[in-house]
């Protein structure tokens, strides 16, 4: 590990399973939408090509996980345990802000041992939909759209150009589907299927896009005439 101030993106411990990945979450009019690819790798071997990287940490609070699979699962488990105690004591479910700040503190306190990039997003009655990005070092950033993982570097331009505030849910699904598909085209650590979860306080809807449903940007099949 080099001793500069930069973050060591390759800091997986030996033999660890990586979720070098593409994850994204966007706040739309009425809720939040989370999206992720589905590839988990151990080196060059794809350990799981249909991974579900969207984890529920509380009723209406979900997170996208990237980095080391083991580290992110451990953090999500402890978060879930803590938030249950929180609701028991305070009588009301925790807000997304509480969950995200706790996750950020955990990632920061253990930054020498963890390799976990999270996007915590959800809906609560106090603030509506919220998206928080928690990158590798453990900082927390509240944003309307957050993308993360190794594949996200390839889609910053697309996201910056095409994001609009207060989209409808269908527009948000279409937007993230195209974004993740573009990242999957170019990033070797991202691929498989696209999974999404929409949270709007009334229900949680899961979406699944595979094969022909994933938009192909530059190798679209010739249209039948």
């Amino acid at each position, binding site marked *: 590990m080099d001793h500069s101030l930069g973050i060591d993106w390759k800091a997986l411990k030996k033999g660890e399973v990586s979720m070098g990945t593409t994850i994204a979450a966007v706040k739309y009019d009425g809720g939040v939408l989370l999206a992720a690819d589905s590839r988990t790798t151990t080196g060059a071997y794809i350990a799981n090509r249909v991974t579900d990287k969207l984890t529920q940490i509380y009723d209406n609070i979900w997170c996208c996980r990237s980095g080391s699979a083991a580290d992110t699962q451990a953090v999500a488990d402890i978060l879930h345990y*803590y938030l249950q105690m929180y609701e028991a004591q305070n009588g009301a479910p925790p807000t997304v802000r509480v969950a995200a700040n706790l996750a950020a503190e955990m990632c920061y306190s253990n930054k020498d041992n963890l390799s976990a990039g999270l996007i915590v997003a959800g809906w609560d009655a106090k603030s509506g939909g919220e998206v928080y990005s928690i990158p590798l070092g453990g900082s927390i950033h509240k944003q309307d759209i957050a993308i993360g993982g190794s594949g996200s570097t390839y889609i910053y331009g697309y996201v910056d150009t095409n994001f609009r505030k207060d989209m409808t849910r269908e527009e948000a699904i279409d937007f993230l589907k195209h974004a993740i598909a573009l990242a999957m085209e170019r990033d070797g650590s991202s691929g498989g299927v696209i999974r999404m979860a929409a949270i709007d306080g009334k229900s949680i809807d899961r979406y699944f896009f595979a094969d022909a449903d994933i938009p192909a940007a530059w190798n679209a099949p010739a249209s039948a005439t």
Partner: protein
Amino acid sequence: MSFRIVPDSGFADSVGRGTVTGAPSAVGVHDTLRHGGVLSHASEHNDRHPLEARLAGWDRTRDEMQMEAMRRVYGLGEPVRRGMELHVAKLGWTPSVMGNAPVGLEVLKGTDTQLSVDDVYPGGVASMGRNKVGGFHDEMERGLARARQF
């Protein structure tokens, strides 16, 4: 008060005479005849497997993490109360027929159904056969001697 969930790597900040259990005549050098154990500073700190510090500190780190979570949610009283209960249980009866194990403490911690190498060889594997567990009669006499003092 930070939220550590994984034990530290355990590297010492400094090594010197203060950390060494020596003989009265040679203070800075570890005395293996009196205390046993490692022969040199180098073997104690170098070439250790990274998993060793993690395993040795695992239970303690997890317990501290749970105490910290309870402190934040329920207040300071909760971990203080649990710490007091553990302390009281540690002072309890350690029956010799169970290998001098603190039975009440294990029930409190929820580990009474678990069996590990530390329960079979309490001083570590290196102390195999050298743990002298007193007989039942010795324990009764000690108890009677305590009761006889007034």
